[in-house]
């Protein structure tokens, strides 16, 4: 299982790598990173057949996370469709509803609670 983290913040990569150090070491999951939605789409194009879970920030320059969500939902109807979780600093109700309506599997706020994230990933990642 590969988790693609989409965020324009560069340090997010280091954070995730450290947070999931054990899981990576035990090869429970793999991490991939994209600094923009477009990069994420490119990644998906390249690694289309893999089992990918997308964690995407919403507020990003250029294409937003929601747009990415919509595109993935419309362009990658692969069986099984990728799990997509949205992460945003604006964890308010309208944002949440919009994300869920657009086909998000879950919705997380910033600052990110990794324990909660891991709980939410458990159903999708075997051995977590």
């Amino acid at each position: 299982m590969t988790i693609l983290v989409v965020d324009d913040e560069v340090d997010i990569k280091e954070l995730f790598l450290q947070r999931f150090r054990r899981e990576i070491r035990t090869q429970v999951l793999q991490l991939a990173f994209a600094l923009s939605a477009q990069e994420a789409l490119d990644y998906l194009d390249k690694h289309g057949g893999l089992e990918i879970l997308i964690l995407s920030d919403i507020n990003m320059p250029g294409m937003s996370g929601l747009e990415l969500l919509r595109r993935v939902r419309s362009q990658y109807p692969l069986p099984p469709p990728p799990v997509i979780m949205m992460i945003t600093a604006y964890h308010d109700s309208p944002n949440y509803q919009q994300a869920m309506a657009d086909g998000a599997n879950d919705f997380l706020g910033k600052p990110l609670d990794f324990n909660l994230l891991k709980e939410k990933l458990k159903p999708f990642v075997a051995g977590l």
Partner: protein
Amino acid sequence: MKLTLLSVWLYLVVMPAFSQTVFRMDSLPSNGVVLDKNWKWHLGDNPNWANPTFDDSRWDTINPTQDIALVRQLPQQGIGWLHIHLHVAPRLRGQLVGIRLEQAGATEFFLNGKLLLRNGKISTHKDIQAGSIWSDHTSQTIQLEADSVQFIAIRYAFSRNKLPINRYHFAFFNLRLQPIEVGEKGELKQRVEIVIEAALFGVFLFLGLLQLLLYAVSTVQRTALFLGLFLVTQSIVHFMNLVRNGADSFFFTLVGITNVLAVFEAITIGFIVAITISTFYYLLGIYQYFGQPRKTTFWAIACITFTTIPGALFLNYPYNFLSQFIPGLLIPFVDILWIGILAIKRKHPGAKLFTLAHSLVLLIFISWTVSVFLPNVSPFLSENVLYLFSISFLALALTISLLLAQERAAINKLLRQQLLDLEVLSGKTIAQEQEKQQILSTQNERLEQQVEVRTAELNQSLTELKSTQTQLIQKEKLASLGELTAGIAHEIQNPLNFVNNFSEVSTELVSELQEEETKTDRDTELIQELLNDLSSNLQKINHHGGRASSIVKGMLEHSRTESGEKRPTDINALADEYLKIAYHGLKAKNKSFNCELVTDFDPTLGLVEVAPQEIGRVLLNLYNNAFYALSEKQKITPTNYQPTVSINTQRSESGIEIRVKDNGTGIPESVKAKIFQPFFTTKPTGEGTGLGLSLSYDIITKGHGGTLTVESQPGSGTEFIIHLPTKG
């Protein structure tokens, strides 16, 4: 006239046959005997010619009573002798008889060789041989001798020089013998006439000059001028009469006039002219006095006067008399009478008295005219007409003077009244003026008070407005702060995310490290890795903590009301920071909004001396406007539209430029001019204060001495250009 000519002709033709015939004087009637025939004439001068024994049979026969102009034998002037032999009736011999003489020169009268009389002065001067005299009425007498035939010789110096008019007729030599009483009476009458004429002359002249003088003092009374002139010209008339009547007695001998005919003619002309002008002024004066409008009638009568009276000079008696006095005087006098009557009807105060005096003159004038033509109708009138005339004229002159005096008194009274009225009026005017002045000053005071009150009110309003403005500016700042909050929250959440998570991870790393410490076979590689991570994490915590604190600091700075101090600022960083804040702020509100942010920062820009929060406010405002324009355009162009905001910084000649460009809706030309005006907004009510761009404009232009300009194409986008000057 024809008869006269005929008789002269007969005389000249017939008489030579009866030469040496004598003139028979059989009686001496009261009107005398005119010696009009049997005269002999010879040009030259010889004392012997006075001698009765001198034979004058070869001398010319002449009738000297005829007009001097018609005596053909005569030169213009000279000396000659007249002879006549007089047969005296027995009862007249030795008697004293009066003589009446008309002559055009000077004579010496010889009876039977003896010099009896001198009339005038015969000059033997080289050039002028004739002294001159006009002898008409005299009481001269001669003593006839006892002889039946007596010899009269006249030594005669004459002059025929006349004025060119040459219409007045003079006898060459007219000798009338008459009873002495007649002559005495005639002389007395003449003396009286002279006195009367002199008196009239004096009175008229005095009264006339008085009126003219009074008129000269005050030119108000035009009547005084006209009637004064009438009186003066009338005095000239009387003067001429005086001179003419006194011709033989005094003046001519007195002044030794050498050319009697010309002088006499001149006097006559003067007399006629004076009468003409006098009549005209009389007419004019009376019209003026009674306020009669001078219309056609007046001028017609004036014309008649001016043409007929002088015309008398060119006509013979009695035609000249008719032409002169009947139309020339009678018509204006009757007209004046009529005007007087009209004035009486109008109850003019002086009308009655004047009309009475005038009527008297007119009556006597008519009577006189009648008496001239019909002397026998009333001998009394014929004899005394002169006195009556003089009295009436004097009465008229006095009446006129009296009326003028009355008029003047009335005028004076009127003037005095007017003066009084004027004084009263001017007093009133001054009072009114003072009142007005007072009202004016009161009003001025009131106005000043009102102005003060208003000014105070205005000042109050101004203060309130200023405070309102300050409040509005504050509100605008707070409004933009509000807009920021969401963006700031996001901006803080991101660093907080790292701070929280890296510190948590670090705690884990530390516990892992401690765990590893307790192990006997320590994985030094792992320890090293953990320590590296730990170090890196701490750095990141520090970095993101600083990031959060700088965001908070920026927010605080932004909310500050006073203008910030200027300090060297990294414009690129500032532009970028606020761009993010603005963008995220908008995103927080409008999730569906998305746009491309293109930044092109000139890395050589360096630090620029600005008030960062102020410039930040401007940038934020421009960004927000750009995003708004994009979102507006997005609403109307759903597909194939990539909203973009481009930020560009660059050096310019005198400073730096920050360009904020969007491809939004653009600004219509009609709006462009107003966008920097305070309270102008295109946003729906409640969404914008309308102060954003106005404040931005002030910050750039007043605060930094720069310029804020806009370039826009409606429908395709807008670019705001901030130009900031740099020192040096």
